[in-house]
């Protein structure tokens, strides 16, 4: 075990002044460990490749320093340390360069860094190119205690992960397999101060496990993945489109028994260039300890969340060609615009997405320039909501119309506060609480205003108002309780030990599936075994999900569930055009349909399990 350390210190740069709050000091992350161990396909270290006036790793260190991470460890392979020391010279953080011989030594350095750190920790590839805001989105979000940067689609030289109800339940590495992946790990892992000790322990365990060389089961899993790479390279070459396969090393999950691989990886003959390509991917995979630490944390049951890069730029360029491509693509990004677009929540409903967000994001940017905080905007929103209720309470036609306009304004400001928080990265727990509570307050105050107004008009709708309040509260209660039950299920699901490649405890299935796949490959004419019949609830759900292929169906499904945007729109439109009785009637009918719809889905999922 050889480690050698040198320290480069540099004065902190003055923070940039672009109107957005600097995250410095608020992230709780005090140490970053960057793994600069991946080779380039030329010769040397990928992280040391030139980027602008400096290097890729230098850019990353400066970005982390700018976000408020004062101390950075860069781990590289013996022989590359001088190149890396030059690469990080003059960086804005205090940088220590460590030279290590093997992944077990890398793991020990990570364990040491975790123990020495006095705050949160970031473990990341040293060779990624991304926007500062993508990193800030993970590091400066207090709602993500421990988590990773992620994206839905596959990317080169990355591994997949699976989340369930916002929590990462499985992760892949060169040696680990994830079933039914839902996203891709982008090589940045944030560990909260509370999980730091766990991280150190996990790195210790992994070090012991890999010190004599990786376990046999792990090696077999890597061989399987590399075999899939060979198959894909060969298939792509056969198709003669000349296009380089853009898949990740990992994305070939275990071959399904029903779809036998047509080619046996061990007998494929590749051209010298493709052979070189396959060897390069294997070399990169063997250096990967970031995913190992990540898998270790997931398998230990640590709660990890994901932060999506959304539309921001991310790349892991491991060749001069890839660097040139990334440099070309990143110039086409208007970071400001992308950031503003990314401030819009991805899961908003139809009305919010098409009738509010297109302009509310500009209001959010304007509020940011005025220096308003999200909590101030939230408070303004609830005040407008109270004004709307007062207007409704007059019971006059002008009052109903004014109230409708104010209800819409209140809803727009409500969207602005969240977008402002995402845009300026000023998330607080109090802000999240205020936002939730004030949303409910606004809605029910408006109900009271409408009922008072109806009384003025000689119509008693208090029972309808109380029914609407009850229905909405019960619908939310179903959401909360169902989520809590789901979390119980997730929490009670045992994780496979990190020694096992498969994410299903027991690990027997992978061997079985591989064996079946190989048998199928050996005898392609053999009919595939029929899949066991699914229970009826699962079939209904599958059919319902398959409707999502129609472009409008996902929107329609969100609309049926009667989300907040649709509710506020219904209140504004029906109150202005007709009156309180119509408003409550529509709220009750649509809300009732929504309750029946979500309840049906949950009942099917619960009994189909």
């Amino acid at each position: 075990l050889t480690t050698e350390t040198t320290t480069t210190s540099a004065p902190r740069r003055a923070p940039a002044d672009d109107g957005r709050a600097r995250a410095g000091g608020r992230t709780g992350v005090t140490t970053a460990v960057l793994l600069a161990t991946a080779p380039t396909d030329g010769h040397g270290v990928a992280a040391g490749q030139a980027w602008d006036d400096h290097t890729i790793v230098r850019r990353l260190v400066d970005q982390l320093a700018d976000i408020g991470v004062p101390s950075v460890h860069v781990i590289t392979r013996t022989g590359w340390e001088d190149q890396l020391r030059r690469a990080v010279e003059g960086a804005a953080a205090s940088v220590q360069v460590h030279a290590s011989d093997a992944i077990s030594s890398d793991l020990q350095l990570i364990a040491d860094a975790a123990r020495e750190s006095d705050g949160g920790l970031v473990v990341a590839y040293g060779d990624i190119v991304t926007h500062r805001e993508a990193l800030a989105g993970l590091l400066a979000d207090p709602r993500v205690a421990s988590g990773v940067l992620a994206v839905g689609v596959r990317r080169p030289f990355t591994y997949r992960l699976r989340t369930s109800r916002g929590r990462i339940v499985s992760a892949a590495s060169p040696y680990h397999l994830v079933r039914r992946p839902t996203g891709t790990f982008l090589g940045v892992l944030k560990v909260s101060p509370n999980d730091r000790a766990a991280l150190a322990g996990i790195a210790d365990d992994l070090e012991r496990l890999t010190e004599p060389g990786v376990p046999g089961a792990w090696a077999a899993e890597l061989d399987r993945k590399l075999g899939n790479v060979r198959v894909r390279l060969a298939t792509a070459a056969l198709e003669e489109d000349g296009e380089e396969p853009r898949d990740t090393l990992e994305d070939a999950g275990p071959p399904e028994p029903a779809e036998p691989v047509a080619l046996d990886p061990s007998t494929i003959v590749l051209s010298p260039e493709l052979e070189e390509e396959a060897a390069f991917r294997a070399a990169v995979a063997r250096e990967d300890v970031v995913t190992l630490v990540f898998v270790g944390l997931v398998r230990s049951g640590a709660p990890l969340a994901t932060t999506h890069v959304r539309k921001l730029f991310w790349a892991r360029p491991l060749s001069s060609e890839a660097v040139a491509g990334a440099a070309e693509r990143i110039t086409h990004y208007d970071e400001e615009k992308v950031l503003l677009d990314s401030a819009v929540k991805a899961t908003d409903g139809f009305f919010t997405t098409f009738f509010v967000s297109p302009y509310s994001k500009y209001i959010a940017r304007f509020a940011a320039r005025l220096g308003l905080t999200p909590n101030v905007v939230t408070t303004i929103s609830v005040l407008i909501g109270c004004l709307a209720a007062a207007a409704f309470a007059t019971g006059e036609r002008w009052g109903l119309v004014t109230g409708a306009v104010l209800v819409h304004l209140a809803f727009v400001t409500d969207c602005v506060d969240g977008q402002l928080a995402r845009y300026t990265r000023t998330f607080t727990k109090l802000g999240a609480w205020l936002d939730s509570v004030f949303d409910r307050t606004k809605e029910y105050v408006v109900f009271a205003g409408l009922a008072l107004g109806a009384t003025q008009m000689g119509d008693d709708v208090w029972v309808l108002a109380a029914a609407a309040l009850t229905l909405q509260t019960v619908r939310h209660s179903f959401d909360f309780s169902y989520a809590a039950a789901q979390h119980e299920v997730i929490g009670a699901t045992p994780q496979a030990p990190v020694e096992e490649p498969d994410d299903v405890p027991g690990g027997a299935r992978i061997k079985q599936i591989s064996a079946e796949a190989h048998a199928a490959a050996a005898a392609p004419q053999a009919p595939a075994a029929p899949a066991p019949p699914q229970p009826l609830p699962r079939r209904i759900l599958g059919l319902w999900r398959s409707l999502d292929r129609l472009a409008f169906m996902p929107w329609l499904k969100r609309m049926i569930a009667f989300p907040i945007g649709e509710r506020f729109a219904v209140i504004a439109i029906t109150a202005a055009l007709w009156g309180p009785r119509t408003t409550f009637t529509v709220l009750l009918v649509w809300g009732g349909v929504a309750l029946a719809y979500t309840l049906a889905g949950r009942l099917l999922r619960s009994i189909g399990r």
Partner: protein
Amino acid sequence: MSAQATTLPAPREQRTTLEVYRDDGPSARALGALLGRVLPLPPLVLLVLGALPAAIAIATQGDDTSAGTTAGLVAWFVLCAAISSGRPNEGSLRWAVPPLLRASEYGGLVWIATVAGDAVPGAFALLCAIAFRHYDLVYRGRHRGVTSPAWLDQVALGWDGRLLVACALLLADLLPAGFFVLAAIFAVVFVTETVAGWAAFSRAQRVGPTEAYDDEEDEA
């Protein structure tokens, strides 16, 4: 809050999130502890059994039901649902219990208000105060990682206590004034406690960051 927590009986500390969401009051817990072992029925069955007679009365007679019958049927629901607090809530549909308790309580209060006459605005005010507590039970857990302190659970009376008090107010002919008074008291207590809790939390956060896994927002 921590001083309170140390004096709590042991079972409270082991409450699951779904048990917290039930919002049982002292009377429900006492009845559940007493009769939960005697009646081995699942909570969902107990809830349906308790709500059925009242539902039939509402469907057939609505607000023409006499005050005595109304109070009797509500008390029957409280008895059945209270026993469910002492029963293990297992099975794949266990998530349906807290929302059904909520629907029964809110619906029961509105029914009592209609039986009393023009007490529905009062009931609406009371529902707003209770809804604040019910949302806060969830949001304080998500954003602050805490549950409601024991004294607050006592003062809030639980769904059981509130329904019984509403019955008493109906029988004593104290509606709608009783609802407004109750709503005002609850509103002051619930909001004050939460604001104080957040103030303490913010002070503590400035000293050192508290880290808790944050739920995704499930509701829209």
